[in-house]
């Protein structure tokens, strides 16, 4: 029993944090929202160099093997820095292809997987478990759909719709080439949805931590009635509750990464989604009107916390899965 990140995992988080801090990700996210993907692609390349997209890909496909704890570590940092793009979807697409290969359908993995792991290709996917939309379908070149036991490579997508999070761009996928069919597709789809939910939970936790950090800094310097508002008990207690929510979501995230049970991942997703959303509500309230502006970078995380609550598992669906799976080991 050593339920702590090891030295390498903590160093991995620190190095991603340093790299993303230097990359001015708020500006990158704003450019992405405006349709300029070049800065986002540059960050993508650096994330690939750091190995982020290889973390759910077996070694035979140029991956690092399946490393769910490292996925969680990385996506907390991606959430903390509001990194745009189909990051979750690319990792989940990799997991889907890898699982399909494990179930005996190796051809799609052989054809598509390695460029995902190395960061050359961006992927997106729409699965029954995750709802009708694929994220950033106009940027991703590998677009997977799995419905009715058929895995398809979509040739195109419908109109891109705006999300409440301006950085997220949603579209339904069109028809396309059949890659695989049969029961293995459903199994691979469930597996991919789990990885997507795990990464989304981590991203939400990171967004919540960023919201808390920025709000703590703000209430320390914002003065009213002649004193920093962070000294008022109403403010302190609200932020104490935010920290409590986030700190109890964190072990659920890493526990789920270790077991990879659907119920544990759903628990982590529900808790991280709620904690991040509570952080967003508190952050907005405690910033006051300045927090309600699109101009303030806080808006990047405020809107993301809302979107991530329902992405890859709504609160109700997560809770249903928790009760379906029950407690403890299999």
């Amino acid at each position, binding site marked *: 029993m050593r*339920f702590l990140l090891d030295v390498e995992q903590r160093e991995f988080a620190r190095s991603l944090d340093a790299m993303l801090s230097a990359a001015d990700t708020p500006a990158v996210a704003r450019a992405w929202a405006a349709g300029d993907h070049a800065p986002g692609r540059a960050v993508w390349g650096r994330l690939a160099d750091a190995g982020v997209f290889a973390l759910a890909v077996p070694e035979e496909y140029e991956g690092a093997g399946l490393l769910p704890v490292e996925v969680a570590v990385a996506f907390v940092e991606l959430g903390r820095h509001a990194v745009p793009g189909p990051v979750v979807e690319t990792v989940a697409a990799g997991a889907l292809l890898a699982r399909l290969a494990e179930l005996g359908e190796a051809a799609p993995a052989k054809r598509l997987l390695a460029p995902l792991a190395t960061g050359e290709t961006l992927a997106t996917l729409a699965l029954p478990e995750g709802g009708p939309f694929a994220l950033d379908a106009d940027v991703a070149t590998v677009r997977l759909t799995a419905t009715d036991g058929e895995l398809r490579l979509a040739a195109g997508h419908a109109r891109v719709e705006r999300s409440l999070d301006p950085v997220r761009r949603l579209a339904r996928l069109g028809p396309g080439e059949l890659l695989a069919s049969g029961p293995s597709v459903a199994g691979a789809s469930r597996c991919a949805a789990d990885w997507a939910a795990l990464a989304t939970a981590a991203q939400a936790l990171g967004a919540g931590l960023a919201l808390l950090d920025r709000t703590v800094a703000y209430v320390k310097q914002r003065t009213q009635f002649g004193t920093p508002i962070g000294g008022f008990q109403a*403010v*302190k207690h609200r932020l*104490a509750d935010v920290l409590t929510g986030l700190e*109890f979501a964190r*072990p659920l995230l890493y526990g789920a990464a270790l077991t990879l049970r659907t119920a544990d991942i759903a*628990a982590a997703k529900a808790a991280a989604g709620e904690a991040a959303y509570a952080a967003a509500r508190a952050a907005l309230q405690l910033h006051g009107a300045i927090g309600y502006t699109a101009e303030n970078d806080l808006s990047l995380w405020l809107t993301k916390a809302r979107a991530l609550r329902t992405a890859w598992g709504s609160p109700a669906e997560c809770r249903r899965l928790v009760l379906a799976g029950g407690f403890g080991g299999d």
Partner: protein
Amino acid sequence: MDLDFTAGEEEFRRRARDWLAGHVPARPLPSLETRQGFAAHRAWEGELAADRWSVVSWPEEYGGQGVDIVKWLVFEEEYFAAGGPGRVSQNGINLLAPTLFDFGTAEQRARVLPPMASGEVIWAQAWSEPDSGSDLASLRSAARRTEGGWLISGQKTWSSRAAFADRAFGLFRSEPVVDSAKPHRGLTYLMFPLDADGVTVRPIGRLDGKPAFAELFLDDVFVPDEDVIGEPGQGWRIAMSTTGDERGLTLRSPGRFVAAAERLTRQWRTHGDPADTALRDRVADAVIGARAYQLFTWANASRFAAGETIGAESSLNKVFWSEYDIALHETALDLLGAEGELADGGEWAEGYVFSLAGPIYAGTNEIQRDIIAERLLGLPKGRR
């Protein structure tokens, strides 16, 4: 990073499980907040102690098994999974014993701990006073120097278990307040018998009328020097130093909530209305919360085992479990429907009444949130 137990830990788990299977009473004991139930729970402490299961983490010389915090958590999981009775000795074991291990003398440990482990002596805490609750350092009960010891006088209140307990421990002012900004100075940590001359115990009925706590009126009660813990005048530091470390982990073990959430889940599956998704979500939240608390505790235990100290994080713990406990019981009572109103209707009703006190005792949740905000988030100190 892992959640795996060693072969030794698994063996310990099996041993605990086997013992509990053979000893936990088949029918629940009467409420420990009644005279009859208190006696039954005291006897149960003796049964635990006879086979060294009452204080597994203590050194063997005091009646324990000398196990580390991981095995203690394993024992607690098994204890609550087996439906073990409430622990009437918990004030002594969780609050006084850690202080004696850190600040007591060898003589005090040898004299106080074995009868605590066996249930022969049950301890009550005597912190709060009528005018000193969250602002504990303002307390006024006094200790006056006398030949060979101290004479204590004043009034303590909300003293859990004191209605039936044997001895109590608490803080007393042994030096007058010199600097009103530093009321924490000049307090002394003392132990005293509840049947001594000059002690009057007036039981207080809690919300359901059971005498779960009491007022203590103290009139020149003699306390010998051997019952002072640490240096006179240093009581505040001594009392507070053990609030932050492992005690933050051990006040409420996750095993209790894991077992309760599993029980609730079983009841949901047999009695729940599948169409009632609102209640279903609350049952799921009970499962999620128990798992979160369990994993949070494992993480802190791992930090502790790695030599790190657990400080103000224990305030996160306290806020979380105390609010979780209420939500858990509210959910269970709502699931029971009209039968949830019955005071003697089963395991949840008394637990519900007990849970309501959680955000108030052991440092109110308002004080805990101040600690979280100031020490973990670095926000400025302000008026309370």
